[in-house]
């Protein structure tokens, strides 16, 4: 067993085997359950997900175009007290992110002050010159954020990633809760859990509050999806349905009379707020990728004329690459004047010669990630890689050091899952979902807990076989 395994924090059990406060009521309920019944419930859950079509598509898998994300029945439980601290930290972080992006596209005070090297902007492919000097409606850039947190100890929650572009997974947060409530209704009468079901309404309200001037009291909101082959299509349809918004594709939209309008059975109708689940690059073939058929020709002109809100704002990706991430403690301090409540994971920027040397000397103990990568692709996990894999990665790292950052292999906390042999600990993270509007920051209590289903694995990404859990914040 590696040192990371030995020192890990378990969400449910203390090292002496006693049950932690968060899990006390749940454990009492669990003790009274028949294991055979629980196992049957587990397979029921899977057929429920299949039937309702809660699936995601995996790129490059021809035979299994739609896959289920494994769902585990043991909830991830957080006490009310833990959550209050977490949500303060998240709100602080999100406010800083918004201020930071605004600054980058305006006066760039943070660069002038010498706290952020200008190189990071010049080398950042998410930087959009089209956004310079422009302020989105309501001054909001990151309408929807999913902050990835990991836990390493009782009071140690760290931010692993700021997903400021188009974080996904919120439909699983909602459906996991629905599933748990239909499988174990009595459990929810015995343990008081804060609800998450208000999210779609909050999302609609938050987006409406960001509508451009002149949109009227009931702005028209639409969700822009790349279509049914996109990996998160289920979520796009789900959110549109729950919000009562239109689910549109690029081919439905056209710029008519200076507005972005959708083709209805009765002619073109204008849209006020577009919650787009299409990357910046594909948003407007006239401005960005000319071959894109997923976007709307001319939408950026309408946007810059202040006649539509795009959520999240184009160009927000500038704040969530992994090189910028390493500066987040500085960024939080700079814009809020406070110390960060939630710390970063220690990060070595391989662009720095000293850091690179350290990383190369310690590859077997570190996690190395691409600066612009996501989804768990293109990374090296030193402790679980073979010598050959490490050497192959070393060559890539030496060739383009500025393309990588490195972090220590964290002892991510574990939470039990159901297995054929009973409960077994697996590593988890947590992605709370945050809504930002001029009216405030709204954080749904809980979020999405992702869990590595394989023993010892630290990779929780669904594209790499990770599963999910219902995430509870206790109403205490």
């Amino acid at each position, binding site marked *: 067993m590696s040192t990371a395994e030995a020192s890990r924090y378990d969400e449910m059990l203390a090292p002496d085997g006693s049950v932690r406060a968060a899990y006390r009521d749940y454990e009492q309920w669990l003790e009274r359950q028949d294991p055979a019944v629980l196992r049957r419930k587990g397979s029921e859950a899977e057929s429920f997900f*299949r*039937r*309702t*079509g809660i699936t995601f598509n995996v790129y490059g898998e021809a035979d299994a175009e739609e896959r289920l994300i494994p769902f585990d029945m043991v909830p991830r439980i957080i006490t009310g007290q833990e959550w209050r601290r977490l949500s303060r930290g998240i709100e602080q972080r999100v406010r800083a992110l918004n201020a930071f992006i605004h600054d980058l596209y305006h006066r760039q005070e943070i660069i002038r002050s010498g706290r952020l090297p200008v190189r990071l902007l010049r080398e950042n492919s998410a930087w959009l010159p089209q956004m310079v000097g422009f302020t989105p409606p309501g001054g909001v850039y990151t309408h929807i954020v999913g902050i990835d947190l990991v836990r390493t100890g009782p009071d140690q929650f760290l931010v692993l990633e700021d997903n400021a572009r188009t974080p996904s997974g919120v439909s699983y947060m909602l459906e996991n809760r629905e599933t748990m409530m239909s499988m174990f209704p009595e459990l929810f009468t015995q343990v008081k859990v804060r609800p998450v079901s208000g999210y779609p309404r909050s999302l609609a309200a938050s987006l409406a509050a960001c509508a451009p001037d002149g949109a009227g009291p009931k702005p028209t909101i639409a969700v822009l999806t790349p*279509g*049914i082959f996109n990996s998160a*299509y289920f979520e796009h*349809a*789900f959110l*549109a*349905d729950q919000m009562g918004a*239109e*689910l*549109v*594709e690029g*081919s*439905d939209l*056209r710029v008519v009379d200076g507005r972005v309008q*959708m*083709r*209805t*059975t*009765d*002619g073109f*109708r204008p849209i006020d707020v577009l919650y787009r689940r299409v990357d910046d690059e594909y948003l407007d073939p006239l401005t960005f990728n000319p071959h894109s058929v997923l976007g709307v020709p001319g939408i950026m002109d309408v946007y810059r004329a202040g006649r539509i809100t795009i959520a999240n704002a184009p160009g927000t990706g500038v704040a969530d690459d992994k090189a910028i991430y390493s500066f987040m403690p500085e960024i939080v301090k700079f814009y809020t004047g406070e110390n960060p409540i939630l710390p970063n994971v220690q990060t070595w920027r391989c662009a720095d010669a000293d850091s690179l040397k350290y990383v190369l000397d310690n590859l077997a103990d570190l996690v190395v990630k691409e600066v612009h990568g996501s989804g768990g692709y293109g990374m090296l996990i030193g402790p679980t890689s073979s010598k050959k894999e490490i050497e192959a990665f070393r060559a890539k790292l030496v060739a383009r050091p500025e393309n990588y950052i490195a972090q220590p292999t964290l002892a991510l906390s574990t939470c039990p899952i159901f297995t054929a042999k009973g409960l077994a600990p697996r590593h988890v993270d947590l992605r709370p979902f945050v809504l930002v509007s001029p009216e405030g920051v709204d954080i749904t209590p809980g979020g999405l807990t992702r869990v590595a289903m394989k023993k010892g694995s630290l990779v929780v990404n669904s594209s790499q076989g990770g599963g999910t859990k219902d995430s509870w914040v206790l109403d205490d």
Partner: protein
Amino acid sequence: MTDGYTCGAMQKPMLGRVAGGIFWMYRYLERAENTARLLAAGHRMTLTRGEDEASQEWRSILTTLGQLADYEKYHEGYAGAQVCDFVLRSRNNPQSVLSMFERARSNARACRSAITREVWEAINEGWMTLRDLLARPVRVTNLDAVLGAIRRESTLARGATHGSMLRNETYSFARAGTFLERADNTARILDVKYYLLLPSIAYVGTVLDTGQWDNVLRSVSAERAYSWLNAGRMDARSIAEFLILDERFPRSLMFCHLAMRENLAALARFHRREGMAHEALARADGMLSGKRVEDIFEQGLHEFILEFIGCNAAIGNAISEEYRFVS
């Protein structure tokens, strides 16, 4: 029938793409179901008639479905098992029942926010069931069960639609698609079998003909309804009248036409205008309303059916254009 609805002032028009997706989704479901009826009738012929006659029947089913040319690219002869396999599940057949259900489901996914969870689950589960049933070649001993499952899954989707969807624009497109397709399918059966229904001295009273007539009725699951209404009388004129003009039979051309009229009227109320689709419908109306079966025979049964099929297709195209299914 309660297909009509009044429109509230707050109802917003739906996306043209979604309207088209819904319209076609119900056409695919209807076509899959009607294909199963045709195969069931063919299967019965195989059990009750000689090999030659059965072969003829399978060939005429392929013609009715418009799949003969595709079939002959890959197969020789018209053995029942081979035809059924092609029509139900062959990857060489873009019009197979399996592919109809796949398309219906794909449209349901693309229009997920326009349909209820019940409709989505009915279609998704139907697709999963048929995908498993049709994963391997269908054995003759199992054919009835498979055809029954196809009808059942389609019925479940229709029932969920009826029981859970708002009576709004979406519903009108769903129903319009259903009845346009159904009218087309019944008309195609008549087109292939019209000669059996011509009043001719030479056919009267032979055993073969009542058998053939019975088969025409079975192709649209009408044999019980027909004999119930006609007290056992079996003649070409009554059968033609029943399949074309009887308002009580839900697969007759008249029934489908009246249902189309109702749904297009609902769309006109919603949009506060009539258009190309309504003009095309008026032509079909001229062909059916107030007509007696004698008028149709006088015009020529075959000519009548060809004209009806053309008219029906024109309504479909006009709906697609009028309501902006594509940009």
